[in-house]
């Protein structure tokens, strides 16, 4: 059964098309990588799914809900069920690790309880569990600006996990990390998918990483979905189609 159904999704920025007629379905529990050159619409796609960007046309159904029709509290509630992690982590650096992780619960709370930072004991327990899962139990009260890049990204993952999401969107999660931290992060994402059954949709710049981790790869070029298949089908020719380069011009060759 499909968890996410994207149909004929189109996004205009002024006159230029960031996405044209994108259609695909993602099954529950899949690990899907999105690749393509800069400006091909990867980020726009991911941000349209949780409505950080409003799509111009088409439809998105997540968990049987018409995402594009939602407003106000209903939209907040739908967003709460989708986790998201970012290239630049986007943590509140002046706050502690656990405070940042608990931000993932805000979508489920009344405005006042969220404003005052009044979290229930279950929520706090959940946050601690998630931090243990990600190997951050020694950093619970550390301020986030004192963490390394890889640790910050793990806090980002923890924040997404306490939302109890069925899907996590990852917007270039390893682009600011060194290779070893990047591997740790990708391994955690795979574990989350395998052990918790959470769907992962991840934007990547590294084709080799996408091939190693994903079960399915979506390739974008100039806003069009030009490849949709398993990593085994992603041969050199297809890669060059996605990146629009002549054979032999890519760094991975």
């Amino acid at each position: 059964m499909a968890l996410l159904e994207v149909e004929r999704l189109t996004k205009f920025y002024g006159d230029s098309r960031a996405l044209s007629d994108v259609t695909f379905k993602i099954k529950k529990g899949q690990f899907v990588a999105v690749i393509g050159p800069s400006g091909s619409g990867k980020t726009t796609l991911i941000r349209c799914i949780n409505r950080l960007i409003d799509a111009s046309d088409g439809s998105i159904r997540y968990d049987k809900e018409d995402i594009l029709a939602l407003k106000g509290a209903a939209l907040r509630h739908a967003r709460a069920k989708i986790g998201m992690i970012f290239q630049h982590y986007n943590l509140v650096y002046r706050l502690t690790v656990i405070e940042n992780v608990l931000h993932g619960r805000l979508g489920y709370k009344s405005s006042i309880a969220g404003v005052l930072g009044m979290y229930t004991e279950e929520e706090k327990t959940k946050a601690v569990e998630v931090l243990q899962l990600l190997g951050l139990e020694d950093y619970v009260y550390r301020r986030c600006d004192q963490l390394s890049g890889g640790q910050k990204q793990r806090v980002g993952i923890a924040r997404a996990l306490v939302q109890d999401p069925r899907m996590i969107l990852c917007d270039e999660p390893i682009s600011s990390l060194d290779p070893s931290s990047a591997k740790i992060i990708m391994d955690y994402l795979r574990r989350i998918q395998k052990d918790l059954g959470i769907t992962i949709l991840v934007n990547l710049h590294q084709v080799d990483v996408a091939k190693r981790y994903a079960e399915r790869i979506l390739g974008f070029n100039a806003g069009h979905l030009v490849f949709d298949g398993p990593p085994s089908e992603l041969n050199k020719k297809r890669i060059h189609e996605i990146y629009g380069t002549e054979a032999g011009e890519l760094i991975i060759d």
Partner: protein
Amino acid sequence: MTAVKRNLRTGRIIVKRPTAAKRWVNVVLLVLLALTIWGFLTIETKGTDLGKATVDTIRYFGIMFGRPAGVDTHFGVSGAGSWGVFTAALRLLLVTLALAFLTTLVGAIIALILGLLAARNLTNTRTSNIIKGFVAVIRAVPTVLWVLIFAIGAGLGAVAAVIGMSFHTVGYLLKAYSESFEELDEGVIDALRASGASWLQIVFQAVLPSSATYLLSWTFIRFEINFAVAVAMGAAAGAGGIGFNLFMAAGYFFDISEIGFITYLILAVALIMELVATQLKKRYHIHD
């Protein structure tokens, strides 16, 4: 040979490009210099002996700061002795401090609320422009003028001073606050929106914690400004406090020692505020 320009006389390479604008700036500066010299040469001294005047000035400053003293009757505590005068002066100083504190507090609360609505990343462009335009007008008029404007309705005194000073404080702090909020990384707001957080939750969980030190330090700067203004308001708008005594000592009693006495007190307060501000900053910037 590239087209490097050289000074025709010395043959040295020219680094700065001579432009028409720079030539005009030089001309204006030269004219101003000439006017200044001419002004000093032709100043009307009404027969003042410049040498004697200089000596007198130094002597008066010596009395002012070398022998500071308050007169009991001027502080309304006749026969109380120097300790009585001192405590009376402290009480007046406290009135001035209270005026500064109250106006900073009122201004800060209003500026905080409006500042959130004026920050471009937290509101729409129209609301932001309207609020910012409005407070730009408030800021353009000096604090003293606002006090005098409100004095039309409230009469000269503490009420006009409180309203007028608070008014200008809002204008000043709102700009500072909203710009602090705008410094916040857009991504953090995105992250909280993505997790389903509401506007108020984002404000309290991300915006305020991230900008707290900026807010604190701007508010303190304004408190220092308001203290100075409160002294002046005591003199100019009858707002009470130590400023009024300073005004009386200078313009009515011609008591130079008392001016020195009051100046020392004000200086001490300014110094203490500076120390407190430094301590607060140390405490809150500790991890930066």
